[in-house]
């Protein structure tokens, strides 16, 4: 229960930050990516602002043996740079540019413009589910020969 409340607080602050910073506006995010148009640098200020508390948090984390309200830290430990990472990031970037939306703003917009964002959110979950069934041939780094 405590953990769910902490997660709710984190999500709420996150959503508030997205809305306040203008990042819930697809046109503004797309304008950041639009170097040939009327460029809008706001997203860079958002990233800069978000880095500060997190930089401090990582330093504090290095001195903690466990998080404050959970038994252990459960953080990504993978360090290999592989093809799924690269292809996934490229596909994500394409979708981000086409729609001006990534997962956080899309979910936050369910409270601001539910009808407008609904097609994106539905498609996003379909895409996520599809990745489970069409997982990409990453586990075989050798080239796929004829079978």
């Amino acid at each position, binding site marked *: 229960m405590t953990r769910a409340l902490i997660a709710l607080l984190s999500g709420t602050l996150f959503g508030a930050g997205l809305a306040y910073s203008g990042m819930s506006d697809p046109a503004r995010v797309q304008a950041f990516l639009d170097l040939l148009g009327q460029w809008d640098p706001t997203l*860079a200020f958002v990233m800069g*602002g978000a880095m500060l508390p997190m930089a401090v948090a990582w330093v504090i984390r290095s001195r903690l043996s466990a998080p404050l309200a959970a038994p252990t830290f459960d953080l990504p430990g993978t360090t290999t740079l592989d093809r799924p990472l690269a292809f996934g990031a490229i596909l994500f970037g394409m979708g981000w540019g086409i729609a001006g939306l990534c*997962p956080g703003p899309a979910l936050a917009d369910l409270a601001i413009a539910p009808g407008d964002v609904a097609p*994106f959110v539905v498609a996003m979950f379909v895409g996520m589910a599809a990745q489970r069934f069409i997982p990409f041939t990453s586990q075989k780094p050798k080239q796929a020969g004829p079978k």
Partner: protein
Amino acid sequence: MIPAFPNAMPVEGFIGGLLIGLAAAIMLLGLGRIAGVSGMAARATGIADSGAPRNVAIAFVVGLPLGALLIAQTVGAVNVNFPASIWPLIIGGLLVGYGTRLGSGCTSGHGVCGLSRLSPRSMVATGMFMASGFVTVGILRAGGWL
């Protein structure tokens, strides 16, 4: 306001960014996890089998619209402008959903949390999705679709 970029909101952007960073710091130090929206969303819906406990993921995901609503109620109307056609939203959504699962993260997990951790994977992922976004929008602009 920046004269060269009349639409930019540097102050609101920076303050909003601080809130986002604080949110991710609470997730990290409180629950020992990355505040990655794509991972949490996949976990909350049951699309992912592993990751955060289900109740944590659901609570985090529910918080996102709640926080936006809070801003709309207290600060004022949140201005959003969507594409006129539904197709960019559907195609974009499919690519974002598939790509974030394949690439293990999005702007929050790789961007905010991973970059500040100086994670090599996140630095590569963020560089690639940013580059991909710039190229994609550049093509849309050059092609006259924007």
